[in-house]
């Protein structure tokens, strides 16, 4: 076996961060979102690149556009649904073009591992008239991203760069590359005809956009990343992104046209390829994007008639979709209890959702760890659509139902999501006067994506001190008269405040404030766990119904119950795992029999 000297073993996101650094990116902005988050996290560790977490993807892209106008290479990162938020600046940045190279990375999530939908962002390239590059693995992502900046500057265009979960979170072998730099001089350049998109200017730029796309189509015909791989011409495959890997693994002998740029398409190359094979297959995840455009060229091909358009593909799906004879028999799955994700032991959100589960209200939820409040045993969320939607949806329900909704509609949103797009919903609630209650779950961090700082945290992406928004003052400033701050771990105290807020005829905000247990300060803090006084437990299950992962229910029969000193009819006892317990005390508040005590007692 040969010893390899220190190969770089990196995830797609780490490789992209390295590529951005090597490409000479000077400004990068974005909002966390799985599977894109680690790009900016990693890039923030390189010298000479300014990085930041923006309050949302729209602002992130606008920051990158500004940096590009100033003549430096700029990057915006987001997940697929984030591109919806950033779509407004994107469509017009297509008209303005760039000065410094501008790349927008969008991370799609086929299979919805950590998302609320599985939209296919390639459609944005078509709709916004922008080139889009699509790597298939981390090593290719690194090479293509560097080319993307060159394309952006040469063709005066923002470049879309699409990855998926199986590129972002796949690790592979990477090689370091050379440092590049832009030939664009940084500085203030007034170019109103290019940068001021009033109708008169925009009509002129509209023509430029079409000319640019024509040039890009020509370029695509000879681009080094659109490649025909020789092989058996009985079956020919046109494919891109990670689907290319599944094609290579399932049909290694076949002839393949691999597209590193999925828009615009190299029409002549596709026509020539189609003519050179007996049967043409287009293999792509999600929408029939390539297939529709290839069929529009008048070329017959197989595509979504065989390949699923929902969920992720893999080698087995690609093989058996095309070659039915290849199906092999698998071991049957065994029925097991599900192991869904759960809020952590000591999570402050649990206290609020416990209360909500006992109040007869419609809970308009939002996107974050707290969306897990939907799951049993709390089951305390009734809707969840997109970032920030909880507030507007609650207001809409209140307006639709009038008095019938009074005291019955609550919206729940995290600190980061409130800042992202929830605030404008609250402004609307106050301006247009509904009495719906908003609970802001302020845990000081953007938790679900892995504890990123946000404008309410008091820290920047690099962990340096930054302004922390005063959420209470912000709510008052938009006109909310009733703002209460509660400790979500104090279950009984919270309930009183929530009940009172629901009785009001005006908008109320309750800020439930307690830090995420996963932030470094909390991990370091002295933690005094609770324990169960076995003799006092009556088996009432009040603590078990919190759904805390540190509390388990231990069923016993009559004999065992007696031997433990319990009444014969006691069905079991609850037990706290003291290693897992974070000492939040929510269960202590629910125990009427003093069976839960602090360790030290």
């Amino acid at each position, binding site marked *: *076996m040969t*010893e*390899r000297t220190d*190969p770089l*073993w990196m995830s797609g996101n780490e490789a992209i961060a390295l590529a951005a650094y090597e490409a000479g990116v000077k400004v990068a902005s974005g909002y966390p979102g*799985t*599977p894109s*988050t*680690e790009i900016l996290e990693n890039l923030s560790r390189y010298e000479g690149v300014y990085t930041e977490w923006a309050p949302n993807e729209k602002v992130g892209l606008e920051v990158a556009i500004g940096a590009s106008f100033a003549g430096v290479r700029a990057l915006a990162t987001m997940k697929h649904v984030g591109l919806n938020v950033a779509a407004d600046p994107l469509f017009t940045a297509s008209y303005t073009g760039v000065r410094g190279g501008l790349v927008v990375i969008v991370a799609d999530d086929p299979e919805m*591992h*950590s998302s609320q939908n599985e939209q296919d962002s390639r459609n944005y390239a078509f709709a916004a008239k922008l080139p889009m590059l699509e790597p298939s*693995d981390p090593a290719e992502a690194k090479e293509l991203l560097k080319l993307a900046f060159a394309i952006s500057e040469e063709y005066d265009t923002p470049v879309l760069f699409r990855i998926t*979960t*199986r590129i972002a*979170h*796949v*690790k*592979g*072998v990477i090689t370091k590359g050379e440092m590049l730099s832009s030939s664009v001089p940084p500085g203030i350049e007034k170019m109103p005809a290019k940068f001021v998109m009033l109708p008169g200017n925009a009509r002129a730029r509209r023509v430029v956009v079409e000319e640019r796309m024509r040039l890009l189509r020509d370029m695509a015909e000879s681009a080094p990343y659109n490649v025909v791989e020789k092989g058996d011409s009985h079956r020919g495959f046109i494919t891109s992104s*990670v689907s290319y*890997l*599944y094609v*290579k*693994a399932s049909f290694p002998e076949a002839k393949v046209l691999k597209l590193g740029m999925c828009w615009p398409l190299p029409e002549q190359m596709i026509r020539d390829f189609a003519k050179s094979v007996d049967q043409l297959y287009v293999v792509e995840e999600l929408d029939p994007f390539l297939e529709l455009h290839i069929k529009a060229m008048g070329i017959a091909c197989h595509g979504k008639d065989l390949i699923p358009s929902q969920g*992720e593909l*893999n*080698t*087995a799906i690609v093989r058996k979709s095309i070659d039915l004879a290849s199906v*092999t028999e*698998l*071991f*049957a*799955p*065994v029925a*097991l*209890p*599900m*192991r*869904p*994700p*759960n*809020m*952590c032991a000591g999570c402050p959100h649990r206290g609020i959702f416990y209360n909500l589960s006992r109040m007869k209200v419609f809970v308009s939820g939002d996107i974050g*760890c707290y*969306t*897990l409040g939907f799951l*049993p*045993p709390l089951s305390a969320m009734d809707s969840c659509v997109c970032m920030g939607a909880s507030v507007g949806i609650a207001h809409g329900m209140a307006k639709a139902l009038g008095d019938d909704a009074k005291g019955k509609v609550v919206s729940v949103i995290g600190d980061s999501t409130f800042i992202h797009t929830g605030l404008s919903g609250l402004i609307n609630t106050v301006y247009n006067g509904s009495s719906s209650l908003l609970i802001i779950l302020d845990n000081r961090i953007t938790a*679900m994506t*892995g504890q990123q700082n946000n404008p309410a945290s008091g820290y920047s992406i690099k962990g340096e001190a930054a302004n922390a928004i005063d959420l209470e003052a912000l709510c008052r400033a938009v006109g909310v008269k009733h703002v209460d701050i509660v400790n979500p771990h104090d279950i009984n105290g919270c309930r009183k405040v929530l009940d009172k807020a629901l009785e009001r005829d005006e908008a109320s905000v309750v800020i439930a404030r307690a830090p995420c247990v996963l932030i470094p300060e909390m991990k370091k803090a002295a933690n005094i766990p609770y324990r169960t006084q076995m003799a006092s437990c009556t088996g009432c*299950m009040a603590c*078990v*119904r919190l*759904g805390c*992962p540190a*509390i*388990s*229910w231990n*069923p016993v029969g009559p004999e065992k119950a007696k031997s433990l000193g319990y009444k014969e009819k006691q069905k*079991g006892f609850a037990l706290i795992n003291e290693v897992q317990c974070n000492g939040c005390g929510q269960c202590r508040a629910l125990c009427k029999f003093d069976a839960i005590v602090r360790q030290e007692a």
Partner: protein
Amino acid sequence: MGAQGNILFSGVGGQGILLASEIMAYALLAAGYDAKKSEVHGMAQRGGSVTAQLRYGDKVYSPLIEPGRADIQVAFEMMEAVRYLPYLHKGSTVIVNTQKILPPAVATGQTSYPEDVLNHISSLGIKVVLVDAFDLAREVGEVRTANVVMVGAVSTFLPMDASVYEGIISARVPARFRDVNLQAFAAGRKVSQ
């Protein structure tokens, strides 16, 4: 060279699966293989069932293991040894940490922990290797090294020498935890030797 293989890691979020799969990946790279590894982050991680998929060979295309083609499964929790059964084939080896972590429906008393699941997979012609990783980690003095005990246990099923893993562990864990991790690796290796 010429060999190729697929290693599936399964367990519960927070058990240290990612570090264990990283050590394995670095060992395979040090031996000259190409490799790819798939992980799942984000929502799925919060105490849920998690997997990592590691593939190696002369040239690896797909980052995902095909159902029926996992050669080795490293299961960090007993029930999670069985959840991905369709990924295994007759002759696969499953290395199981015998620790039980109760899923919510069991912890809240709605259902019971499935017993006898390992006998079922043994009966299908799958080799099962039991490792008391938690106890072994406690014996070496640090319960958080259970994941490295598992690396030791799986290491005997791959062609690399122990020294390759030991070098990687030494280089990748903080100095003050180096010795305890090397002991954890040795303890795991002994189980399957």
